[in-house]
């Protein structure tokens, strides 16, 4: 195995985007500049990290400088203790129910009418004959046209009907109107409205809708149908952008607990605990790196979706990318540096020594106590060293089972579980030692 120090350097020179191993900081930086040039934010933070990494390698640490800063900037929370009360959110009042009440009373009227129109629309577009005359008959069969013989003026614009201004009928309500007052609903659009499973043509048709490819409607009917269409569209607004975005967010949701776990594992290492080992923590770091990579990729996809510059859509895409880059930089790339194998050894050794000392003291104390008791009780039976065979001790068996479990959990990177099992194991060990101690005395 390489030394811990080599490990450090190697890890530092992996490209965080494509994971290529570039062997040196300068090579990686130039790789990054040429292949991932749009990554300015990440690049900058990388350079900073390398600036520091190099110093660590050259044993030219600036950490006490950093400490001075932290000290100077440290906020003394004590100063604000008077405001530290637990503060709950202030008063608010909802009028949502009232609004919905007013709204539904109003929309109910529309709803019945819209439903009637939709049923008619469905009948109209279903099996519509292509022959114009046949089509006219079909239309009149679905919606009887008003008798217009006594109508002299267009009811909408009040202009006189004559040879050039002829009478027409709305295909949905049958009412009379002139051509200027007519609106046309594209037949394909109409089909999509009555049957949402038909592929959505959310973009308006590029050709002008006319009598031939559309349904002649009065303004009132047209508006009701249009409204219906918009409600439908907003419910089906799941675009590629939304899909990519949701994927990106789900990666972020995964990364969040991982980062917390990583911090916990790292701290545990620094504390000299044996719950996790360096490989565990490195794996965790790798997993977070993978997630960062995924988030980065998706957010780059998002910013690359076509959008006219300056529009809301373009600003949205830029902002999503910006937020993702910020998140990666602040939360995922700024993970705490791992201790080296040697550092861990040292902390563990110190911890072990402390524990040893404590046990030693405890033992001495007990011995003194026993001596005193023996003195009082006078000479007694000599102590028998019970060194009975331990192999079939159920505690030992239990411990072995748990060790297996830990191995499993570790393989699957279920570090929460590892922590719990390790605690169990520790308790069993304690129990076992206690037992032995009791047996001795």
């Amino acid at each position, binding site marked *: 195995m390489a030394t811990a120090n080599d490990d450090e350097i190697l890890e530092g020179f992996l490209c965080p985007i494509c994971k290529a191993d570039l062997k040196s900081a300068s090579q990686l930086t130039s790789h990054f500049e040429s292949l991932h040039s749009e990554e300015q934010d990440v690049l900058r933070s990388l350079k900073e990290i390398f600036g520091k990494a190099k110093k660590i390698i050259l044993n030219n640490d600036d950490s006490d400088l950093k400490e001075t800063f932290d000290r100077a900037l440290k906020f003394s929370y004590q100063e604000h203790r008077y405001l530290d009360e637990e503060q709950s959110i202030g008063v608010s009042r909802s009028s949502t129910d009232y*609004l919905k009440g007013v709204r539904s009373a*109003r929309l109910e009227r529309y709803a019945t009418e819209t439903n009637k129109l939709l049923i008619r629309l469905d009948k109209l577009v279903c099996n519509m004959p292509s022959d114009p005359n046949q089509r006219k008959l079909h239309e009149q069969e679905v919606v009887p046209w008003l008798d217009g013989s006594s109508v002299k003026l267009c009811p909408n614009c009040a202009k006189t009907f004559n040879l050039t201004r002829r009478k027409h009928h709305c295909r949905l309500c049958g009412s009379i109107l002139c051509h200027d007052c007519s609106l046309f609903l594209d037949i394909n659009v109409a089909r999509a409205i009555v049957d949402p499973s038909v592929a959505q043509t959310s973009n308006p048709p590029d050709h002008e809708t006319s009598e031939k490819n559309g349904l002649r409607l009065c303004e009132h009917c047209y508006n009701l149908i249009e409204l219906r269409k918009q409600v439908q569209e907003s419910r089906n607004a799941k675009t590629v952008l*939304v899909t990519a975005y949701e994927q990106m967010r789900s990666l972020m949701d995964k990364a969040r607990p991982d980062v917390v776990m990583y911090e916990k594992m790292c701290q545990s290492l620094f504390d000299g605990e044996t719950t996790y080992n360096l490989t565990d923590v490195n794996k965790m770091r790798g997993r977070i790196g993978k997630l960062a990579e995924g988030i980065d990729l998706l957010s780059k996809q998002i910013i690359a979706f076509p959008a006219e510059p300056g529009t809301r859509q373009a600003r949205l895409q830029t902002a999503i990318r910006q937020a993702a880059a910020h998140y990666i930089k602040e939360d995922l790339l700024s993970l705490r540096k791992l201790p080296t194998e040697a550092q861990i050894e040292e902390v563990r050794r110190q911890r072990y020594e402390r524990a040893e000392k404590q046990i030693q003291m405890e033992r001495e104390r007990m011995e003194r106590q026993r001596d005193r008791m023996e003195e009082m009780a006078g000479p007694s039976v000599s102590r028998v060293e019970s060194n009975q065979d331990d192999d079939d001790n159920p505690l030992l068996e239990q411990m072995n089972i748990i060790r297996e479990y830990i191995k499993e959990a570790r393989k699957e990177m279920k570090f929460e579980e590892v922590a719990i099992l390790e605690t169990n194991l520790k308790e069993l060990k304690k129990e076992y030692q206690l037992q032995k101690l009791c047996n001795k005395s």
Partner: protein
Amino acid sequence: MNVIQAVKLYITRMTEESGPGMKVILMDKETTSIVSMVFSQSEILQKEVYLFERIDSHSKWDNMKHMKCIVFVRPTSENISLLSRELRYPKYGVYFIYFSNVISKADIKTLAECDEQETVREVQEVFADYLAVDRHLFSFNIVGCLQGRSWNPHHLQRCAQGLLALLLSVKRRAVVRYEAASEPCARLAERVRDLLRREAVLIDNNIPFNGEIPTPQLLIIDRRDDPVTPLLNQWTYQAMVHELLTINNNRVSLAHLPDVHKDFKEVVLSSEQDEFYAKNLYSNFGEIGQTMKSLMDEFQKKAKSHQKVESIADMKNFVETYPLFKKMSGTVTKHVTVVGELSASVTRHNLLEVSELEQEIACQSDHSKHLQRLKNLLSNEAVRHHDAAKLVALYALRYEKHASNALPSLIEALKTRGVPEHLVKAVVNLLEYGGAHARQSDLFGLQDAVKITKRLFKGLSGVENIYTQHTPLLKDTLEDLIKGKLRENLYPTLGGDDGAYGRRPQDIFVFIVGGATYEEAQCVHQINQTYPGVRIVLGGTTIHNSTSFFEEVKAAMQGVHRTHTRHIRNV
């Protein structure tokens, strides 16, 4: 009673209530400021809010049905009609609407009628209706709240609504007290009381009556009772920055400085986002210089450079030539830039000398000496016209009734000096605004025997720091209030004294009609530290420096006949 926290909690909930998804926040001019005071843009971005739109912008319609829209606006009639239009032709998929104050049923009905596409999911009133400047400081950003000595009706309404919102946002009931001699204070107090009554049910349902502690008090006082504090040069960091560079919604523009780095054309000074600032906003100018110097020394040791860092100019130089420093902390660089500019102003305009005289006029009593030094300073060309006018105004207030008052000749001196007309007028306006006739308190301690002796001692024994002798009148008022000694005849309780008087309030809201100052904010901060259990929140129609205060006074005196300064004929 942390007002920043109160606003943050509301906004955070807005972003959460709409669930996951891409969001846009639609705001008006005022709510934009309200939000920007407590959150930075990157913080908001992390809450999935990607677009910030103004409800009054006329940009083109877009289909953005894949976004959720959080609307956060003040409940004005203009906003209701803009929002109606938005709902009739909705750009976004769903709408979560939050009004920053009470909204009428009729307005909600209007919105309901426009919502034909059923895009509205929530309509709520939340009470984040003030600018949270600091944890214990708020403002409504109104300069010139009085016009011709009485309230501009819009501003009166705005302040009353804002104070109602303040109480609801921190969940406090309060009795309302006001400065008896001030008509505007009485009007505002009544208006607030009316609003509180109208919302009695809301209050009863949400704010449990707490008999354990004395009823919180809302005290409304008038800037006219202490026109001196906003005139003084300041030496604590925040107050000094505001006086010399002007803080606007936590932002300071440095664009006017020659060769300022592009990152620092506008800097954000927010105690929530900037730890250095949070720690040092009440530090003395000298202390900050010291802190920075020790930081710099540390670097220097590292750099093994032989450069000496002695002055602030050296520091600036040093920072510019030490890139690591820049990298390590943009924050400190920012403050070095700001402090550097402050320091330059102090030297350029003789501010030490100016400030010393200001403090002595405000705190001591020696007419002939003060007059002589004032005349000397007026003939010093390094002193700005603005400071010259301020000094004369201070003199005018302090020695208004003095037998040998020399104001007309001082005004003559200002004119000879070439001080612009509006500044000369400002002196007289100020005397009309806050002269002895307008004050109910003993601002200069001329009647109180204790104060007279105290001042005498100061004069005899010298003072610890000649630049910080002055304490604002507010300090005495608040200490009286805390001790239950604030006199009911001078500061009556609306609806009569129901036993609250004499009890020592712990939760106090104090609002200054005519604007508060950062010096007063610091004073409140100190009182909060000194008196255990006491929590005071300070607010003002705005937060003044001397420049904006002159504007305030000008507006208040617009069209008012001079009645107390008629003897000054040379203006």
